[in-house]
């Protein structure tokens, strides 16, 4: 049985892909790039590129996995185009995480809002690994396969991304003291 409705559809049916995976792709793109308009452009380019290169899809993976791989490549190309916008860790760490823009309703809501803002300040590589790990729920070796990096590189990026978040989140809200995180229950 296919993992998603579109997985069983004809590989060339753009409309089926859009209905089955469009929303999930858009949300993933939004988390990766941090901008709604850019995310829409990314999804549009992803689906059109997939449509043009559909003959290369061998069916070895689910359609969503294939589409998501294209999305990641396009997103990475987008970073490279924006290389002139150099990631400045020191500047980010000096600036508080938009505390003045937050209207806390309760501690939990406040924590999640601060965390979401902190994730947006991560470098593209670190944000990518956080999104793939905790939104797409991928294992280390799966992230490595999708990004083309080694498992060691992914672990390193994850470690430093969590350390960045640890620095950006105020002490009383900080849940990142331990090395490595995951959303699964203890095996």
């Amino acid at each position, binding site marked *: 049985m296919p993992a998603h409705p579109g997985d069983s559809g004809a590989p060339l049916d753009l409309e089926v892909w859009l209905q089955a995976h469009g929303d999930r792709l858009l949300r993933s793109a939004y*988390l990766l790039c941090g901008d709604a308009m850019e995310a829409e452009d990314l999804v549009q380019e992803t689906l059109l590129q997939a449509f043009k290169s559909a003959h290369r899809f061998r069916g070895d993976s689910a359609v969503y996995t294939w589409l998501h791989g294209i999305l990641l490549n396009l997103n990475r190309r987008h970073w490279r185009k924006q290389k002139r916008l150099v990631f400045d860790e020191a500047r980010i760490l000096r600036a508080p995480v938009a505390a003045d823009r937050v209207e806390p309703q309760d501690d939990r809501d406040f*924590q999640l809002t601060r965390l979401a803002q902190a994730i947006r300040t991560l470098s593209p590589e670190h944000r990518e690994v956080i999104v793939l790990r905790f939104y797409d729920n991928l294992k280390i070796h799966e992230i490595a396969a999708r990004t083309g990096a080694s498992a060691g590189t992914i672990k390193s990026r994850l470690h430093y991304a969590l350390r960045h978040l640890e620095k950006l989140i105020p002490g009383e809200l900080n*849940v990142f003291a331990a090395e490595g*995180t995951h959303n699964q229950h203890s095996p």
Partner: protein
Amino acid sequence: MTCREFREGLHDYLDCALDRTRQAAASEHVTVCPECRHALERAQAAGRVLRHALERTAAEVALTPELSARILARGRVRPAGTASLLRGGQWLFLNPFRVLGAGAIVALALLALYVADLRTASRLVAARERPAFATFTIDVPFQTDRHAGVIHAEFSTR
């Protein structure tokens, strides 16, 4: 298993990606080491919080009918009925190897027709050169005001 080994393999332990022996050793280790158990619990808690934050952020966007229409328009997708009819053509023209294959099939078909045509022509020539098996002759006399004569017709079977 040492604490260092446990911390280094924490991601793989959470992924159940360690081999069976090491996975069991890690499970055993957290039962006897409060610090590593604490690290594991915090890792799981942080993961849950991160997941929640990401899902909440992701819910800020959704696929709108306008975006869907824009993508479908750029993909030049026809309504569902005609899309399936066109799919065969797309299948053919999206892959150069398939185009070459189809061309080869057409060329072979043309060659077969040509050979068949040659064989038919040669059979006709050969038949003309063979002696007749039987010959029928018909003579029809006629006469008009100015002419008179006989129409002669001959039929042969070979």
